[in-house]
C-alpha cells in the first residue's frame, strides 16, 4: 500500500489478508489462489503488508475488549491514513469485524468477503468462470458461521460453486442451520472443554454423509478444522477441503 501512495495512486480495493492467510501454511495457499484470480483479470489491488495487524476478532470473542479496541483503533488509523474505501478479505472473521465492529470506532469501509467480491466481478462481466476439472463433480459447501448466520451471506459462495458446473450437494445442516466447525469464538486457539466428541468430527460426519469428495468453504479456520476432521476419520474415500477461491483458480488453470 505504501508503494501506491508513493506513486500517488490509489488501488481499486485493499486485500486484507488476515493472520491465517499470512502465516498458516494451508491458508497461504488460499491467499495465493485469490491473488491469482485477481491478477488474471487485472484487478488493481493493494495489501498492507507489514502494516497489517490482527483485526482483534479472537481477542474480542475471548472477552478482551481492551485488546480488541487497541487493535481496531490502530488498524483504523492505518486504513484511514491510506484513505481506504473498499476492503476484500478471505477470512469471514476479519470480514465480520471490519464490517460490523469497526464503524463505531471510526472505520467506515465497504467490506466484502472474497466470495461476494468474486460474485460482483462475475456480474460485472470481468470474471469468467468455467468448470474445468470440476465440471459435473459433486461438491458440498460448509457455511462459515461468520459469513452465514452472522452476516446472512449464504448465496454468493453457492452461486460461485454453481458456476463451476459442479453438482452442489447440501449437507442436512446447512445455511441458517449450518453446524459450526468448532473454531469460532477463539476456540481455534485452545483445546475444547470436556465432552464426548470434537465439533469438527461431528461436522466432518455431515460431510461424509453427502458422499462428496470435495467440501468447499470460505474460511481459513473452517478449512483447518475440517481438514483435521477429514484426516481423523478418513477411510477409503478421501475428502479434500478447498476454499472457493482455490476451486476457481484450479478450474481456470491459474
Amino acid at each position, binding site marked *: 500500500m505504501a508503494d501506491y501512495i508513493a506513486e500517488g495512486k490509489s488501488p481499486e480495493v485493499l486485500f486484507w489478508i488476515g493472520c491465517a492467510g499470512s502465516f498458516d501454511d494451508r491458508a497461504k495457499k488460499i491467499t495465493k489462489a485469490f491473488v491469482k484470480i485477481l491478477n488474471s483479470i487485472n484487478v488493481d489491488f493493494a495489501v498492507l503488508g507489514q502494516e497489517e495487524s490482527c483485526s482483534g476478532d*479472537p481477542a474480542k470473542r475471548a472477552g478482551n475488549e481492551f485488546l480488541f479496541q487497541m487493535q481496531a483503533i490502530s488498524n483504523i488509523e492505518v486504513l484511514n491514513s491510506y484513505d481506504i474505501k473498499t476492503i476484500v478479505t478471505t477470512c469471514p472473521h476479519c470480514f465480520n469485524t471490519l464490517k460490523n465492529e469497526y464503524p463505531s470506532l471510526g472505520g467506515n469501509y465497504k467490506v466484502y468477503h472474497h466470495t461476494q467480491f468474486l460474485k460482483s466481478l462475475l456480474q460485472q462481466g470481468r470474471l469468467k468462470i468455467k468448470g474445468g476439472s470440476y465440471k459435473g463433480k459433486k461438491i458440498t459447501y460448509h457455511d462459515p458461521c461468520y459469513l452465514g448466520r452472522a452476516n446472512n451471506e449464504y448465496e454468493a459462495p453457492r452461486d460461485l460453486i454453481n458456476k463451476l458446473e459442479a453438482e452442489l450437494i447440501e449437507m442436512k445442516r446447512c445455511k441458517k442451520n449450518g453446524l*459450526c466447525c468448532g473454531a469460532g469464538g477463539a476456540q481455534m486457539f485452545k483445546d475444547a472443554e470436556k465432552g464426548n466428541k470434537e465439533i469438527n468430527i461431528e461436522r466432518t460426519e455431515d460431510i461424509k454423509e453427502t458422499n462428496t469428495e470435495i467440501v468447499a468453504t470460505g474460511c481459513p479456520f473452517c478449512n483447518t478444522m475440517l481438514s483435521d476432521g477429514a484426516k481423523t476419520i478418513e477411510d477409503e474415500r478421501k475428502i479434500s477441503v478447498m476454499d472457493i477461491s482455490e476451486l476457481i483458480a484450479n478450474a481456470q488453470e491459474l
Partner: protein
Amino acid sequence: MSYLPNIAFLLILSLSLGYFISNIIKLKRNINLGVDLDIDLSVNRKKRWANMAKIALGQSKMVRRPIVGALHAIVYVGFIIINIELLEIVIDGLIGTHRIFSGMGVFYGFLIASFELLAVLVIFAVSVFWIRRNLIKVKRFFEDSMKGWPKLDADLILYFEIILMSLFLLMNATDVNFQNMDNGNIISGFIYPLFENYSAESLHVMERVFWWMHIIGILLFLNYLYFSKHLHILLAFPNTFYASLENKGKMNNLKSVTNEVNLMLNDNSATLEENSEENMNDIMKFGASDVSDLNWLQLLNAYSCTECGRCTNVCPANITGKKLSPRKIMMNTRDRLEEVSKNIDKNKGGFVDDGKKLIDDYISREELWACTSCNACVEECPISIDPLSIILDMRRYLVMEEASAPAELNNMMSNIENNGAPWPYNQMDRLNWKD
C-alpha cells in the same frame, strides 16, 4: 343474600388482578435492575413492529418444525379466542346475569361453537405435548437443568390447560338452558347426554360448580404466569420488539473501553482531563459477573425464555457433550434474578450482599469457555433471545476484571499484543506468503 355471589366474584376478581398487577410491577422493577442499553427507537420503528407481528404474533419461527408448530398454533389461537368468552363470564359474574351475550342469536352460537371446537383441539394438542414430554421423552426436554421445578412447571401448564378446557366444555354441557337453545353446542351437545339422569336441580348445581371452577382456574393460571416459564405468552411480544436488528455477528463495542483505549493511545491532555473526570464519577466494571451487570434486554430475555431447548439442541458444544447449554444460561439468569428480587423484597427495597453471583454460583466457567460464538442458538430461538450476548459479557468479566482466561487464550492474546497475530510470528513476515 342474593348478592352474595356477585360480591364473592368481585372480591376474587379484584384480589387476583391486584396480585397479578403487583407481580408485573415487580417484574418491571427486576428487569430494570439491568444496566441501560442504547436502543434508538426513533429509527427502524416499523421494522421492530413488523418483527413483533411476524415472530411473536405470527410465530414465524415456530413453523420451522411444522408439526409441533401447528400444535403450538392451535393452543395459542385457542387461548386467545376462548378468552373472548372470559368477557361474558366476568360481566355475568359481576352483575348476576347468565350468558348475557346469548341474545345475539346466531352470532353467539357461532362464537360458542368455535370456542368449543378450539377447546377440543387444545386438549388434543396439549395431550400430544404431554406425551412428548412424558412418554416419548423428546431429548431436549431432558437435561440436568430440566429436573425438578422446570419439569413440574412444564407439566403443570399442560394440566392447567386440559383442566380449563374441560371445565369450559362441562360448564356448557350441564347448562340445561344453553343446551335447549341448541345454538353453538357442537361439542357439549354430545357430552350433555352423559348427564341426562341427573335432576334439573343437581344439573344446575353442577353447572355453577364448573362455572366457578373455570373462572377461578383462569385467574389462578393468570397469577401462575409470573412464577412460570409460561410468562413467554406475554413477554414474547416486547422481547421480539426490542431484539437487536443488527447483523448477528456484530458484538457491541464497550464505550467505557473506548475511553480508556483513547486515553492510552493519545496523550492529549484535554481528553485526559475530560475522561478522568468522567471516570471519577463512575467506577467502571467491565463485563458481567452478576445479573445487575447485564443489560435490561438480557434480563427481559431471561424472563421470556420458555425453556423449549431449541437453542441447546443446535449448540455445537452441547451436541458434542460439553457442559454448555444456552437454555441453561437463560434459566440460570432468571433464577439468580429471582433470588436477587427476593433479597430486595426481604430487605425493604435494598439489595443486601448475599455473597453469591451469577458466575460460579450458577454458571460455571467451563460452560462459558465452551462457546464457539456460532450464533446457532440466537438464530434458533423462536422469540429472538440472545444467550450469546450474556456469554460474551461474562467472558469479558473473566478476562478484564479477573484476568482468568484459559492459559492458551492468554498466549493467543499476548501474541496479538506483541506481534499483531494470534500466533508467535513476526509482523515483518506478513508478506512471506508470496514466496
